[in-house]
């Protein structure tokens, strides 16, 4: 499978990337790790006329200590998240979840920014960003704006990043000592989650339980009212509308969500 013809442009800076996007408008697509976009292009489900490669921008690949928070460049690869000593200490949920994505080859290419902007509800990092109340920095021609993760994921594969804009940074408050857990149920080693659960303290987010990644609000409300993990987990399916397809039925996913939320909450409390 070969993508349809396009013109390749490598951005030399963030400003250059924005200028290329402005010049080519809807015909252009940003390329980060390419591990969501290139498969779509090979299937010709995406047919951009211009591909703007961000891969040459080393200044967007970093994990930095900012005092009370950690800042992560959008082009930081899953492999670098998983092996970051700073994240391992201060935001272990993110480091751990990044290490469960795909396989080593995928993690050597895929980036946190690409994963978040792609907005696939079956992806892991969007739910992790929700559970961690991450703040996403989006830059456009008029400058930068900060979008809380809870407002970032709009709909099926749709995020707050508008055409002509790009995600530059992800900020997360340090979590050293907070209980966390990540549950990911897959049928085969490198598959996406049938259902996934990210827990950070009493924040709970779900992978693949609706058209977009979501917080399990009913579970969180039950916990806030003093419910035990097992009691709170019984609310895991409320407000969800999971996919119903050959890998798993919607009813199976709703049952699985309750099981995984209970496990995740119990593990988080034991940590």
């Amino acid at each position, binding site marked *: *499978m*070969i*993508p*349809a*013809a*396009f*013109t*390749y442009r*490598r951005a030399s800076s963030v400003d250059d990337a924005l200028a290329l996007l402005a010049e080519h408008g809807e015909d252009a697509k940003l*390329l980060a790790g*390419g*591990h969501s976009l*290139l*498969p779509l292009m*090979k299937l010709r489900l995406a047919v951009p006329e211009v*591909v703007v*490669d961000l*891969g*040459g921008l080393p200044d967007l690949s970093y994990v930095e200590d900012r005092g009370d928070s950690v800042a992560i460049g959008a082009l930081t690869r899953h*492999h670098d998240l998983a092996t970051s000593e700073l994240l391992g200490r201060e935001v272990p949920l993110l480091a751990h979840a990044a290490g469960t994505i*795909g*396989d*080593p*080859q*995928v993690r*050597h*290419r895929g980036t946190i920014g690409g994963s978040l902007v792609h907005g696939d509800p079956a992806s892991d990092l969007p739910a992790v960003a929700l559970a961690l109340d991450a703040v996403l920095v989006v830059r456009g021609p008029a400058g930068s704006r900060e979008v809380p993760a809870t407002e970032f994921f709009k709909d099926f594969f749709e995020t707050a990043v508008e055409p002509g804009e790009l995600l530059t940074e992800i900020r997360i408050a340090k979590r050293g000592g907070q209980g966390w857990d990540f549950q990911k149920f897959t049928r085969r*080693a*490198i598959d996406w989650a049938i259902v996934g659960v990210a827990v950070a303290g009493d924040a709970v987010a779900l992978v693949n339980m609706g058209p977009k990644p979501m917080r399990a609000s009913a579970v969180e409300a039950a916990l806030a009212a003093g419910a035990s993990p097992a009691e709170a987990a019984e609310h895991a399916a409320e407000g969800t509308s999971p996919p119903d397809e050959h890998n798993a039925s919607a009813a199976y996913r709703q049952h699985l969500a309750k099981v995984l939320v209970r496990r995740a909450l119990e593990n988080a409390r034991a940590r």
Partner: protein
Amino acid sequence: MHVTINVNGEEHGDEVEDRTLLVHYIRDTRGLTGTNVGCDTTSCGACTVLLDGESVKSCTVLAAQADGHSVTTIEGLADGESMHPVQRAFQEKHGLQCGFCTPGMVMASVSLLRENPNPTDAEVRSGLEGNICRCTGYHNIVESVLAAAERTTEAAE
């Protein structure tokens, strides 16, 4: 477009279409057919090569993305007549059957051992989760990687 890619230690300048996949550049432009295409969908790992020393699936990378970078394929591992320790271990431990997955397995193993020179059996198994062996010869593949790790560690001591 024009790309300059260091392939197996030698710099090459080549004209490619912008949409050329790295695996096609390696096989068709460079004539290095050791790298196989299995699934063409980022699933099987047969097309694994090293990009700047790290394993990647070359069916899901553009040749343009490798412009200015280094690629190592199975042909670039041996030192003259002397096989790379991972290649030698695959031979000795019978880590291959039909051989189709082998170049990808070997490249993924080289990358794995660079990141983790002393892996456990479980770490080898999860480290090779992106590579499928349709002959299902996993047991000896894992034995081969563990043997290569042992030999490399001994040599370093």
